[in-house]
């Protein structure tokens, strides 16, 4: 009887471990194949912008994400995808580990985007890296959230004057200003 209990317990532990492993590497928000049943949760195409390898401009990359129920969740998902970096050409330009703490959107399309401290701490580089980091963020939000017209970036609840000392971030940035 004791052996049966031990065997059952071991099987349960193994099954839990397997279930955990199977679920662990599945990236949140990644594409569910069309063949999979997604009747309750939809899949949506987004367009993300990363830095061009020569530093001259942004490069767009279409991607699919699970549909998010709220604006906050959509922004969290977009920033998480930017943080993961490009799958095709281009260079990840958002400082590593950047995540969204809070999002506020007013009725005139001004989004106040509160990013984690990693946005500031994780920044490496000069003005090109800084320009592309901000451009990638603002352009990706503008392209996927038509209700967003301008973005004010704050960091861990505090206003920031600049990210790396080259571009002012003290005022909202127009999403159409970042070609």
């Amino acid at each position, binding site marked *: 009887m004791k052996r049966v209990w031990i065997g059952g317990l071991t099987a349960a532990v193994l099954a839990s471990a397997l279930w955990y492993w199977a679920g662990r590497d599945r990236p949140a928000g990644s594409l569910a194949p069309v063949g999979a049943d997604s009747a309750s949760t939809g899949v*949506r195409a987004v367009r993300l912008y990363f830095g061009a*390898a020569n*530093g001259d401009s942004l490069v767009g990359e279409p991607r699919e994400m699970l549909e998010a129920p709220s604006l906050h969740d959509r922004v969290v998902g977009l920033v998480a995808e930017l943080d993961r970096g490009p799958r095709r050409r281009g260079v990840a330009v958002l400082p590593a580990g950047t995540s969204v703490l809070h999002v506020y959107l007013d009725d005139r399309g001004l989004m106040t985007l509160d990013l984690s401290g990693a946005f500031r701490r994780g920044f*490496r580089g000069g003005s090109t890296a800084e320009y592309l980091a901000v451009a990638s963020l603002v352009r990706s939000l503008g392209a996927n959230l038509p209700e967003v017209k301008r973005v004010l970036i704050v960091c861990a609840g505090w206003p920031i004057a600049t990210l790396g000392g080259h571009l002012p971030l003290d005022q909202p940035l127009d*999403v*159409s200003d970042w070609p």
Partner: protein
Amino acid sequence: MNEEDCKGGRSRDVPETPRLRIPRAVGLALVALLGLGADWRTPPPGEGPETAPVRRLDGTPYLGVNDLARLMDATKFWRADVRKLVLRSGAHSVALTADNPFVIVDDLTVWLPAPVRSMGGELQVPVALVDTLPSDSALARLIFDPRRDQVVVLPASGGVGSPRLSTTRERTRVSFPADRPEEAVVVARSRAHFRLRFGGIFLGVLPDSLPAAGLLRSIRPIAAAGGCAFEYAIDPAAAGFRLIQDVAGRGVVLELSRLPGEDLEDFAPEGPAGPRSIRVVVLDPGHGGSDAGVVVGGVAEKNLALALAQRLRPELERRLAARVVLTRGDDREVSAEKRAEVANRVRADLVLALHFDGFAESRAHGATAYCPPATFAEAGSSEGSAFGGDGERASREARGGFVGPGRLAVLPWRDVGSRYAVQSRALAEAVLSTLELRGQGPTRLRERLPYDLLGVNAPGILLECATLTAGEDRERVTQAEGLRQLAVAIADGVAAYRRNE
């Protein structure tokens, strides 16, 4: 999380970019060829409208459903048990079933010429579906282009057609048909680089040639984040312009006039013609103190910028016979406010903020200049058309400016540098041209008011003199001779700016 935590470390160690090993002569030849082909004065062309390829199955054009969802900006819901896919975009929905020609669009059942098919794990839908989608402002309009075998999405802002030009003795008019004329905005108002942006995408063609007697020298499409934008070169004889947004007639007219008038807006101030007077130059070595800037392979940007400023000072004094002032002469932290205060107190005639760039994991190299955008004119005209209509007024006010009644535009002090946008761009072009000619490119120019020039009441640029993450650039500027050559090139560029030829 406190404020200090948010500020984080000030020095930024940047991993070195892997260096490409190619023979020096071959490398120089390649750089020269690339330099010839590159137009550093313009941003790279932006992306066009969203498109999706069409494939033909048994002669019928089909579109992949993933592409269809992307173009419609729709969310996909898949029912595996009945092999049914629902696309939802706003209040609209499209229900497709594999191997079935019947599609439900909102409440209507549409019979397609061929069934929806499944290929490679993705449904393929006959392109004829795009003509049956509802046409309202909530849903993107899709157009099948059989010549290119692709489906193009027309955004909510619609399209912009081919411009028509008309010229009289006094006036030149450029008329664009546009679905949303109210979205047209003048984003730069210098004569040499006048820019007009539309919300819609450009579906027309630009004229091959322009009338010699007109006030328009050239027109070309430029990169835009959504919609489209054009850059005009306007004849110096033009006294002013007027943007007419004809919402009822669905058109936008840019009118240029040789004669000044109350109904005209001004171009950005250009300063006097002929050689420029430069009595005081402010050199602003970037970063300093605990803020080391870019750090690569033991080379710190703050030290290099200071060393360059110290070498550049005698070169400028010799060429310009001007007083040269440094915002810092040693390794200490100087706030942006303090830097601006130094420049304004000595009444600088130009300001050069000296930096070195860094962009890890990339192939970036060369120099970049930042100058203020030409958004400001000394005097706007009265209400209504003062700044290109309500759209631009809102945009200007959103940026912190105030558009008052009468011929007055108030500019926030932080943006005072935009009064000198035309001169600053000329300075940037002169310096970048010299760097390019001396083999220190490639160079790029960005019209964006840099942090170091906030509140600086003088023409100025932020110059990233080289890219430290690029091995060759770093090797060059960390040698005494390389730094001297860089200083000589910048000083020659400033001298060319002063000549204003």
